[in-house]
């Protein structure tokens, strides 16, 4: 169907045709490739290659699937001076991301009763699903908003919701510079006002389990990861605040005619240096900083729950890392032998800086950054270390990727006792609605092991540990 040319292990080139400004590049094994070719995501890789100012390749990660304009699992870097910035290249859920925290205690030592109590305590503290936000609270004031979008996760830390050392363990120290509310709509503010510290719905979750296997003992040691340790994984983003910023921007960009001459109007993109492009970046940064605070506050609530139920000190639950996987960031990379500032769009893709990257905290400079790749709630999630591969602008996959639609998954599991089934698989799952669990059952996802194997073969990141979920709260 597509003229894919294998150029290295698990790396395929999609040659430049028609109006493509660069070729496409797909990271996949042959097995994954067969599934990828079945949806329209490679067509979207081709479309992205038409965007002004794109450099290198229009990239696709092995968990790629069809998205809006850009595929999910797509990466595109634009020249910061001549290129464009596209909300479709970031996604509706700006700075959707994942956070991994570790408790240096064996999960196996936590009794069944304590596990159940812990899950319940977290479920009570962290709103998940639709409409479980803290309605009784007053929500964010305008002043809170303007401070947190500027300060990032530090805003929550300064309010006792975390520790100063957490900030070193968050991508970009938990703050995308330039965030402000100047061009954020009242509607966006209202949507997010009571949503800080909540999971939301869809594929968002909290997962607790055990470090099942260590692949890279040196890196694991450097990061304090040991086999059997208890881990907490949080997946959520900027909630309604970020969604509305994306919606508002698309509306402005389309009205300005920025979709003209593009193969898909959902790719609509403004020149980075234009007023509209700068406004979007500032608003996007505001949403990204909201998301960092969201995950920071959720972790604080989980620490509180663990303190009460497991009798640990809050600091014992140590943040290992927090990554964005829906973001556009200015980064300096080498292009044709010269350092150049690029605007790297990662939509359903994770930054994977390698050893020595100046942007990383000291602990990670000697290893490369942690790359967090959640799988499904039954099988596994993965902890990897970035290699800083220039071919993908130091980017990696972000998850397993869906194999089955929500509708098909819901129909397949309708009427069955899902919580009992998952318990029989060793996973205690809680959610506000049956529908969410049915849509998110493990067989709705690709095998994350296969996805991770592809990025490892391609040299984007190396596996450090495999994590086995045992307690799950679904959004």
């Amino acid at each position, binding site marked *: 169907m597509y003229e894919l040319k294998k150029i290295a292990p698990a790396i395929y080139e999609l040659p430049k045709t028609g109006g493509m400004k660069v070729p496409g590049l797909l990271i996949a094994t042959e097995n994954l490739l067969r599934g990828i070719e079945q949806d329209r995501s490679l067509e979207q890789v081709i479309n992205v290659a038409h965007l002004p100012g794109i450099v290198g390749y229009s990239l696709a990660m092995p968990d790629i699937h069809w998205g809006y304009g850009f595929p999910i699992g797509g990466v595109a870097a634009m020249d910061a001076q001549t290129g464009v910035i596209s909300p479709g290249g970031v996604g509706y859920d700006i700075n959707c991301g994942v956070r991994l925290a570790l408790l240096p205690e064996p999960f196996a030592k936590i009794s069944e009763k304590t596990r159940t109590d812990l899950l319940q305590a977290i479920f009570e503290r962290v709103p998940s699903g639709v409409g479980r936000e803290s309605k009784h609270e007053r929500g964010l004031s305008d002043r809170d908003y303007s401070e947190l979008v500027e300060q990032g996760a530090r805003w929550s830390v300064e309010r006792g919701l975390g520790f100063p050392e957490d900030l070193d363990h968050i991508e970009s120290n938990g703050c995308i510079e330039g965030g402000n509310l100047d061009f954020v709509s009242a509607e966006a503010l209202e949507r997010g006002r009571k949503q800080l510290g909540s999971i939301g*719905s869809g594929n968002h979750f909290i997962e607790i389990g055990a470090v099942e296997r260590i692949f890279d003992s040196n890196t694991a040691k450097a990061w304090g990861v040991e086999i059997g340790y208890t881990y907490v994984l949080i997946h959520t983003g900027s909630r309604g605040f970020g969604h*509305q910023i994306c919606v508002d921007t*698309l509306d402005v960009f389309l009205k300005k005619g920025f979709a003209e001459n593009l193969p898909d109007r*959902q790719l609509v993109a403004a020149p980075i240096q234009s007023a509209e492009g700068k406004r979007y970046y500032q608003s996007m940064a505001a949403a990204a900083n909201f998301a960092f605070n969201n995950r920071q506050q959720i972790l604080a609530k989980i620490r509180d729950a663990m303190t009460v139920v497991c009798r640990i000190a809050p600091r014992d639950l140590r943040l290992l890392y927090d990554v964005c996987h829906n973001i556009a960031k200015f980064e300096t990379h080498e292009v044709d032998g010269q350092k150049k500032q690029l605007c790297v769009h990662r939509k359903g893709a994770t930054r994977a800086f390698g050893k020595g990257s100046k942007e990383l905290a000291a602990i990670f400079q000697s290893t490369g950054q942690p790359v967090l790749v959640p799988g499904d709630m039954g099988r596994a999630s993965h902890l990897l270390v970035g290699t800083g591969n220039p071919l993908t602008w130091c980017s990696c996959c972000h998850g397993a990727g869906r194999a089955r*639609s929500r509708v*098909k998954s819901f129909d397949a599991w309708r009427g069955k006792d899902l919580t009992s089934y998952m318990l029989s698989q060793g996973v205690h799952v809680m959610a506000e609605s049956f529908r969410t669990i049915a849509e998110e059952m493990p067989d709705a996802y690709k095998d994350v092991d296969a996805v991770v194997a592809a990025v490892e073969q391609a040299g984007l990141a190396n596996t450090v540990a495999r994590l086995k979920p045992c307690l799950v709260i679904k959004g």
Partner: protein
Amino acid sequence: MEMKRLFVGMQAVAPWPETFPNGRVLLEVDRHLTLAFLGDCNLSSVIDSFQRFPNPGFQIGLAALFDHPVFLPHREPKTAGWHVRLLEKNSQFSDFCHRVWQWLREIQADFEEPKEFLTHVTVARQPFVIREWKQSFQPLPLFLKNIYLCESLGFSRYDVQWSHEILSPFEVIEHTADVAFIIRGQTFDDLFIHAALALAFQFPPLMNYLQETVVHGMDELIYQLNHLIARTDAAEGCPFKAVSYHCSMENRENILEWEMIVDV
């Protein structure tokens, strides 16, 4: 003569609750809005006449809302049902009903049009506790679809003897990561109400935030739907992030079909 107890009704399609209060609950397939009750009739002669059944004037199912419970007859109720409030084409529907009744009078001299036409769908029959049905009621979206001539079989079961097919205002279609629908309408206003209905089938509280809207084009349609999502999200949360600017639209014999993709 083959005498049958007949009525003309419209199929009611809704995201029905999984459970109901006590009562003899009708099967989903049998829940309908009765347009006219014919009583005991000679089926073969009536069936022949139905070849000339009045054209409803609408090709696509009508969006509506179950807005309150009804118990009929008012004195000593025997049925528990939900009132149907149409969200579109009220006058067209009313006109259609009157044409049907007039036509039925022409084909059957003793037909009496309803004295009080209460648009509702019967959900259960006695025995039931009115208080329980009132307490459990939640507004729900629905659409009225195929028109049919049915025979009452007793025990709240019906057998379709003749039907006039009407297109669904929306259909759920496959999408790997999110949710997608085919939305049908003859105008952009139709598309708006049918798209809102499609979303409300997955999240009924959305109907509380539906406002009368005039839509002139594709971008405005998406813009208005996203405002609806935003209003809902701000007020009580919403499972939808946004309707994407995916604009795949086809015109099939004057019916617009839009592929709506919603990020969840």
